[in-house]
């Protein structure tokens, strides 16, 4: 057994183990995912096949992640001003894989190359999730990832927010915290394939800190949000008033990023339009574009998403994103860079044991091509085929093959950038939530 050498990881693991043991001691039905546990419902009530949500699951999320009888699962302590869950509302998601692939790790500055054609990626991640209604209108949701993608010694908090379902009785919901902007379209956490929705990552519209308002107006769903626009990592000392001030600064500039989506059902198709306008730091000259500079530059994203299903067992989805990064590279600050990408997929769930998925990712670096920066690597054309076998509703084995349709680039500039190796892979593993 490999010893744990990092204190941070060991501490986190210890806390996690204590939490799990305590929960097991008070909750005998621990082997069920949290929402199913709380409402005494089958996982099948919300999932067509874990983690894909069915229509009722989507309704549950839209209903502030609660059912009308949520108070039944609160402690009966005779205080109307207190709605404590009877037990700590915790759940775990864990993934472990073994992968064979062609992709290599190439240092863009030196060309130094590491490769591992076969790779045990176990654990790929361990997530600790928690969510519960706290009042008539307020719900919280949170999860932390331990050892994500081999990063032992780290615990990363991604989704972490409060949501009020009805601000001032207006019917408008408000969510405050960390969340993914792209969740307005297709939440990455409930996708069936291992392969990611790459256009979201490339466009930088995943995790950020901010506020999101949403409301339904007749058949139209509206969402409008405001975020810092610098992700979820920055954390700067506020030191100008004096020495050792306690507060921190999460944003690194005065601008905020505004984004929103409008959507409706058109017959059997749900169609949405996404828009974003904000600032991002420019990229310094040299070093393959891996370093940010100090200029704030304009960033805009427009998106179109379409989705639907056939008979409740075949789901399809399409996403297109158009990106405008004005003056993004310090090497040519007067130049505006446009690029586009997207993905399309189908999930077919023929039975309670099997699910099959296809996901096609496409991205074109556009104006960022031949810039001798890592942004040349926005290019992508790959098809992922996934088969999932459900040992239980909440435990699946997964086999996936990713086929890369792009040819390898040859190094043309000073740096090792672009599509220098193919990204074909085959992957097997387990994905469980409990």
């Amino acid at each position, binding site marked *: 057994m490999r010893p744990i050498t990092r204190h941070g990881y060991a501490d986190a693991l210890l806390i996690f183990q204590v939490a799990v043991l305590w929960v097991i001691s008070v909750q005998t039905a621990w082997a069920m995912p949290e929402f199913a546990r709380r409402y*005494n*419902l089958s996982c*099948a009530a919300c999932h067509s096949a874990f983690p894909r949500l069915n*229509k009722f699951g989507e309704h549950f999320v839209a209903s502030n992640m609660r059912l009308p009888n949520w108070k039944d699962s609160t402690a009966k302590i005779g205080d109307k001003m207190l709605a404590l869950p009877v037990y700590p509302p915790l759940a775990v998601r864990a993934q472990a894989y073994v992968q064979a692939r062609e992709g290599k790790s190439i240092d863009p500055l030196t060309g130094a190359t590491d490769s591992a054609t076969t790779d045990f990626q176990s654990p790929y991640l361990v997530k600790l999730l928690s969510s519960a209604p706290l009042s008539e209108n307020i719900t919280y949701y949170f999860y932390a990832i331990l050892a994500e993608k081999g990063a032992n010694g780290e615990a990363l908090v991604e989704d972490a927010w409060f949501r009020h379902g009805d601000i001032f009785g207006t019917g408008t919901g408000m969510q405050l915290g960390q969340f993914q902007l792209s969740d307005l379209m297709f939440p990455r956490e409930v996708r069936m394939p291992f392969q990611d929705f790459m256009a979201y990552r490339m466009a930088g519209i995943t995790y950020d800190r901010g506020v999101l308002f949403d409301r339904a107006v007749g058949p139209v769903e509206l969402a409008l949000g405001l975020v810092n626009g610098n992700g979820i990592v920055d954390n700067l000392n506020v030191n100008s008033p004096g020495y050792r001030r306690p507060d921190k600064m999460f944003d690194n500039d005065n601008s905020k990023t505004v984004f929103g989506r409008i959507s409706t059902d058109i017959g059997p198709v749900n169609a949405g339009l996404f828009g974003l306008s904000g600032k991002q730091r420019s990229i310094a000259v040299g070093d393959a574009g891996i370093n940010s500079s100090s200029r704030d530059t304009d960033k805009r994203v427009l998106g179109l998403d379409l989705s639907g299903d056939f008979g*409740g067992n075949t789901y399809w989805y399409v996403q297109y994103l158009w990106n405008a990064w004005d003056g993004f590279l310090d090497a040519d600050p007067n130049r505006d860079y446009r690029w586009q990408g997207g993905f399309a997929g189908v999930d077919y769930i023929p039975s*309670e044991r099997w699910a099959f998925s296809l996901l096609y990712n496409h991205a074109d670096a556009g104006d960022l091509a031949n810039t001798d920066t890592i942004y040349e690597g926005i290019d992508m054309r790959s098809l992922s085929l996934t088969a999932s*076998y459900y040992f*239980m509703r909440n435990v699946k084995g997964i086999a996936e*093959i990713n*086929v890369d349709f792009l040819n390898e680039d040859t190094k043309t500039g000073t740096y090792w950038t672009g599509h220098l190796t193919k990204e074909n892979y085959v992957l097997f593993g387990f994905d469980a939530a409990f």
Partner: protein
Amino acid sequence: MLLSETGCQLPFPAALLLLCALVTVPAAAAEPTLRKLHLESDPPGAEVLLIGGKAGHTPLTIGERSIYPNDFRDDQAHLYGTVTLRHAGCATRVHRVTLDDIERGLNVTLDCSVRSAARAAAAGKPEPPVSAAPLASAIPSADASVPVTTEAISQRRLRQLQVLQELLDEGLISSADEQRIRRQLLKTP
């Protein structure tokens, strides 16, 4: 063909074969549903309605996915996760299915005293036949030969008792409250 045209070389033929084998495993070989709800009623022979429509008569075994379909009409959303039991001479009962029900089976005792009382009030008029109509229309329609006031009162009581049962099933009122209100309703002329 597509692969060769685009210059893609599959590097892992063995794995691909395995994946293809997985994909081509006949879906029909898998269990259609993993779990089932066994449903009985007292009296037996009650018609069972799910969100998708009629499922049969008790005693009956129902696949979990029939109770929790992945898709349904918006106007049927209130029936999601429920079973509705109808029996001539008894009050219609709507029950929200829990994991415990699926694990242990569900035996529903129908309240047939209400209809008996209503029938008595209606001076021996025959019970209307059970139809496949939605829940709301399962309440018997007014009979022209019965005095309007008596019929209207008994119909209203039936509706109130059904709503009461639904409130109890959904955990919105306690069992004690349900009993108290039920007694009050039955006492009220």
